[in-house]
C-alpha cells in the first residue's frame, strides 16, 4: 500500500554507488597530489604511484571517502608510507652492497647520470635518517601543501609548522653534509 518495492530494492544499490562515487571523486581530486608526495620522497615515479595506490586502497578499506579528514589522512599516509619504503630500500641496499661490493663498484653509467643519481641517493638517505615528523613536514611542504594543509595532515597547530619546517630544513642539510663527508 503505497510502498514502492522497486525503489526500496534500489536503495541499497544506490547507497553502494554513492560510496563508490565519493571514492572516485576523492581519488580524482587527490591522486596526483598523493603520488606527488610519494615521488618527492622516493624520486621514483613507478614506486611513487605504487605507494599512492596502496594508500588509496587502505583508505577505502578503512574510511568513508566523504569524511572531512580524507585529504589530510591521504597526505600523511603518502608521506609516511613513502618514507617507510625509503628506509626499507636503504636497508636493502646496504645489505646488497655488503653482500656484493665488487659488483656494485663495477656499475658503469654516463658520468652525469651517476652524479644526479648519487645526489638523489645522498638526499634520500639523509631524508630516511630524519625523524618521521620533520621528514614528513619537509616532504609535504615541498610537495606544495600550504602550512594549514601540512598542519592538518600531521595533526599539529598551523602556528607550529614554521618552526617545525625550519628545524627540519636545518636537520636535512646537516644530514646531507654528514652523508657526503662519510
Amino acid at each position, binding site marked *: 500500500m503505497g510502498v514502492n518495492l522497486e525503489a526500496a530494492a534500489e536503495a541499497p544499490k544506490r547507497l553502494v554507488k554513492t560510496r563508490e562515487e565519493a571514492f572516485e571523486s576523492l581519488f*580524482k581530486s587527490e591522486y596526483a597530489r598523493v603520488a606527488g608526495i610519494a615521488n618527492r620522497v622516493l624520486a621514483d615515479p613507478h614506486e611513487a604511484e605504487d605507494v599512492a595506490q596502496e594508500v588509496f586502497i587502505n583508505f577505502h578499506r578503512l574510511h568513508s571517502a566523504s569524511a572531512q579528514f580524507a585529504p589530510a589522512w591521504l597526505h600523511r*599516509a603518502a608521506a609516511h608510507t613513502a618514507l617507510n619504503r625509503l628506509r626499507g630500500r636503504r636497508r636493502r641496499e646496504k645489505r646488497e652492497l655488503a653482500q656484493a661490493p665488487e659488483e656494485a663498484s663495477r656499475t658503469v653509467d654516463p658520468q652525469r647520470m651517476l652524479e644526479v643519481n648519487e645526489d638523489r641517493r645522498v638526499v634520500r638517505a639523509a631524508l630516511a635518517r630524519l625523524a618521521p615528523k620533520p621528514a614528513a613536514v619537509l616532504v609535504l611542504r615541498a610537495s606544495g601543501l600550504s602550512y594549514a594543509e601540512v598542519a592538518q595532515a600531521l595533526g599539529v597547530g598551523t602556528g607550529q609548522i614554521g618552526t617545525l619546517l*625550519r628545524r627540519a630544513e636545518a636537520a636535512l642539510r646537516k644530514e646531507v653534509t654528514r652523508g657526503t663527508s662519510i
Partner: protein
Amino acid sequence: MFDDPDALTSSDRGHYHDCADCQARFTGMADDARAATTMLATPELKVDVASAFKRVQAAPAAKPRFGFSLPIMRPASRPMFVGLAAAVVLAALVVTAFANILPLFQPTTVQAIPVSVADIQSLSALSEYGTVTWSQQPTPQVVLSAADAEKIAGFNAPVAHNLPAAITSSITYAAMPAAVAVFTFDAAKAQAAVAKTGKSLPKLPSGMDGAQLTVTVGPALVEVYGNLNQSSASSQDINLPQLVIAESAAPTVTSTQVTTAQLIDYVLSMPGISKDLAAAIRAVEHPASTLLIPVPIQYATSSTVTVQNHFQGVAVGDNTGLGYGVIWINGNVFAVAGPQKQSVVLQIADDLT
C-alpha cells in the same frame, strides 16, 4: 618569514632592520630553506589518473581473515577499530608463538612492539603452518543490558565515571564466553605454505611437528558508547562509536612438545620477520608474563603509560590523530578506546571501576 615576507609586522620589521643577530639567523634559515628546496626537487610527475583508478578498483576487497566479524560495527563504521581488531588478532598470534611450556603463559603486564605490514603478513602466515580447530568457537553476542552481558562474561561490567558531557549515555553491551582454539603444527603444511611464496622454511625444531598450542581467549565484555543505529546512509558519514570499554580475561596458552626458546628462535627465523621486530621481541624482559601489543607502525603510534597510578599500560594512537586507546592488565585485560583526545581516554581509564 622566508616563506611569507609579508607576515612581518612593521614593528618586527623595524627590529629586524636594526638587529644583527636576527639578520644572521634569517640568513642561515633562508640558506637552509633554499638548500632543502633544491635537494628535494624532483622532475614533475605525470600520472594517468583514470588508469590508476582502474588498478585500484581491481584490488581485492578486504575479507575477515578468521572468518567472523564483530557483530556490532558495520564495515564502514569502524576505521580505527579495524586496527584494534587486527592488533588483537595479531596479539593472539604472537602470544601463540611465545607460549611457554607449562606452567602456562598468563600475562600480568603489557608492552608494545612495533610491527610493519610485512611482519604482519609473515606472522599471519603462521596460521598456515598447521591446523586451527576451535574447541569452543568465539560467539560474540550483542545483548540488551549490562546484566545480560555480565551473565555471559561471568564478571561485572566495568563502570566509567565522570564521562565528558559530549559522550552519550547510550551504551550497547556485547559479551563473549571464553573461546578455545587448538593449533597443531604440521611440518608438511608449513613446507607447502612456504614453498608457495618461493622461500625456504627455517628448519623445524625437533618435536615441532605435531606440537599443540591451546589458546584460550575471553570471556570478554564490551561496552560501546554511541547511537549505533542512527542512520548515516544518506551522508555516508562515519557512524563511529564515541567510546569503547572492554574487559577480557587475560589470554592463556599452553603448549606441548616444544620449549619457549625453541619457539622464539623458530618464529624469529621465519622469512619476512624484520630484524627490528626480532630485536624488539628479544628485548622483552619477562616474555612469560608480558602480553605483547603489536602496534602497526604505519597506522599507529604507541607509548607506555601508567593507569590508575599503578598498572603499566600501552597507549595506542592512530596516525591520523582521530582516535586513541589504552590497554592494561589488572587481573583481566582492560581497554578503553575511542575517537577522543588522549587526555580524555586516559582519564576515563584512570576512573574505571
